[in-house]
């Protein structure tokens, strides 16, 4: 299958300024050379802890922040090289859902105005058609047409996230990038939104990049998962393969760290020591080596490449064979 979206060696460095002259003294390497494909109809999960660059990846694909280097191929076009105007038109096909439904909706606009704006900006339909489309989409996300004349403050967090989803869907995009769409919600509301997203995925054959820190949520919704650590993808695999055989020591630790409500499924916990190193000054070699239980001299000096270890399962670790044969 041809990938719908191909990310090649994408980098995003944020400069650090200091001194009176505001000289650039270094860079925060938020995203540091990542590669992956997204295939039509699939949901790719990107997981990692705060500061690993998962949100920056999403924003850089959409050019909400400009990539420093690399290519984002969508339908054969490199999004990174498009002009601002071309990119704006391209956003009809790639839409984003943000984390905080309280901050991402304009409080002064009614829901109708918010949804209408997307259609007008992209010049979709006549006035009548737009109105029909909005009424249709609001029901798709589980709200009612009479909600259209209200303002965001009339809605609860879960309802607002439904509106955000409607706003992304209303222009019929090919790809949706969802950045932590359920993290701000309570568990009973979270499950409502997750079910809705699963429905929409089926109904519209959506291709989605789902960014989250919550592995259980990612497992529930995604088909493939990429695990990021300090700006790099350390493991990317089919969901089944990743959760059955987590192969990178970081993925293993991450999975074991999740508190499980079900005691029967409790595993030995791998406790990682220390904190995430600063992305402004990442460790040499494999960036995970200072916290890795298996680290060797090789890990300290040479960064590992992402390589295929079994079908559709890629890991970036020198010690894959040794660790996983124990």
């Amino acid at each position, binding site marked *: 299958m041809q990938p719908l979206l191909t990310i090649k060696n994408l980098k995003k460095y944020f400069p650090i300024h200091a001194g009176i002259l505001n000289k650039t003294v270094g860079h925060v390497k938020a995203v540091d050379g990542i590669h992956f494909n997204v295939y039509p109809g699939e949901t790719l999960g990107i997981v990692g*802890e705060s500061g690993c660059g998962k949100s920056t990846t999403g924003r850089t694909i959409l050019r909400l922040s400009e990539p420093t280097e690399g290519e984002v191929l969508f339908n054969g076009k490199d999004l990174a090289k498009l002009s601002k105007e071309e990119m704006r038109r391209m956003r009809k096909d790639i839409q984003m859902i943000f984390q905080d439904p309280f901050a991402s909706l304009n409080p002064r606009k009614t829901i109708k105005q918010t949804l209408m704006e997307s259609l007008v900006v992209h010049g979709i339909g006549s006035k009548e058609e737009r109105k029909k489309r909005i009424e249709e989409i609001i029901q798709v996300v589980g709200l009612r047409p009479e909600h259209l004349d209200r303002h965001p403050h009339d809605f609860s967090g879960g309802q607002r996230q439904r509106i955000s989803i409607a706003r992304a869907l209303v222009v019929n995009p090919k790809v949706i990038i969802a950045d932590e769409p359920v993290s701000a919600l309570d568990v*009973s509301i979270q*499950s409502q939104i*997750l079910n809705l997203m*699963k429905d929409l995925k089926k109904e519209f054959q959506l291709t989605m990049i789902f960014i989250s820190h919550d592995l259980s949520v990612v*497992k529930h919704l995604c088909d493939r998962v990429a695990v990021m650590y300090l700006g790099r993808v350390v493991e990317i695999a089919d969901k089944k393969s990743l959760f059955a055989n987590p192969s990178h020591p970081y993925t293993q630790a991450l999975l074991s*760290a*999740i508190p499980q409500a079900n005691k029967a499924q409790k595993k030995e916990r791998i406790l*990682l020591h220390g904190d*995430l190193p600063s992305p402004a000054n990442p460790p040499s070699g494999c960036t995970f080596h200072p916290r890795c239980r298996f680290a060797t001299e090789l890990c300290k000096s040479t960064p590992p490449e992402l390589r295929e270890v079994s079908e559709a399962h890629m890991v970036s670790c020198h010690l894959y064979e040794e660790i996983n044969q124990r």
Partner: protein
Amino acid sequence: MSVILDVRNLVTTFSTDYGKVAVVDGVDFVIKQGETLGVVGESGCGKSVTSLSIMGLLAQNGKSEGEIRFHDKNLLQVSEKEMQKIRGNEIAMIFQEPMTSLNPLHPVGKQIGEAVLLHLKVSKAEAKQRAIQMLKAVGMPRAEEIYNEYPHQLSGGMRQRVMIAMAMACDPKLIIADEPTTALDVTIQAQILDLMQDVKEQTGTSIMLITHDLGVVSEMCDRVIVMYAGQVVEETDVETLFSEPKHPYTVGLMESIPELGTEKEYLDTIPGAVPLAHQMPTGCRFAPRCSKVMPICEQKQPPLLELSNQKCRCWLYQEVSE
């Protein structure tokens, strides 16, 4: 095991534009020596307000009634001066967001020492020693240097360690931890939970752990109360909670969480949202969202029924208890 905190019929009301609103409405529970009590519920269920009522830290427009017995005192009746002696000394609190609860203008060591200086009869030098000792106890590397560092120089996990060190500094009998790991990443959360477990084993302190994460409850707690809309709806030991949850809300909550070990096409959901504090339904507060609702549920509020292994506020179990 002796009871160290006994909360009886706690009602906390706030005066608002909608009139007097009871955010906590008739809550009873006890915490025993050396146990960890989990308080579970979603936003707005009153779990944080319960803890603030115990600490006497309510906002100006808030008022608590009922009884909060700590040792032989009713904390709702002691003077502010006396409360200051208890707060931070015998009952300490760990807040969710360490960045906003530490003072950004003072070095962290001094903030730990401040509590020691205030409550124990020690010299400044001794207070400093104690602060450094506490920083070491919570697993901070280079404790002497960190003593002089400011909160912004530390990571989220380290700040939360400082908060725990501060809470532990006066050897409190009870620690109230309000979502202590919610703002942290999972691998850091694992470190902090591990630390809290160690602290508890070493000192025998009781912990009241407020959280919305059932995974954390399962790992940390001995007993659990589940709160919904300002009331306790279920109370039981942690094994029973997970093996035989009784209240439809508890069951719904558990079913709606995606779990790593299980595969489900769709999650079960609880429809609707938590009612607002000034618009509480007259009958059972969970009735509008409940899948097992009966006519009586909408008319009369169920009492907290005593069942064999647990307490449960639900009409479904009325016959069982009689």
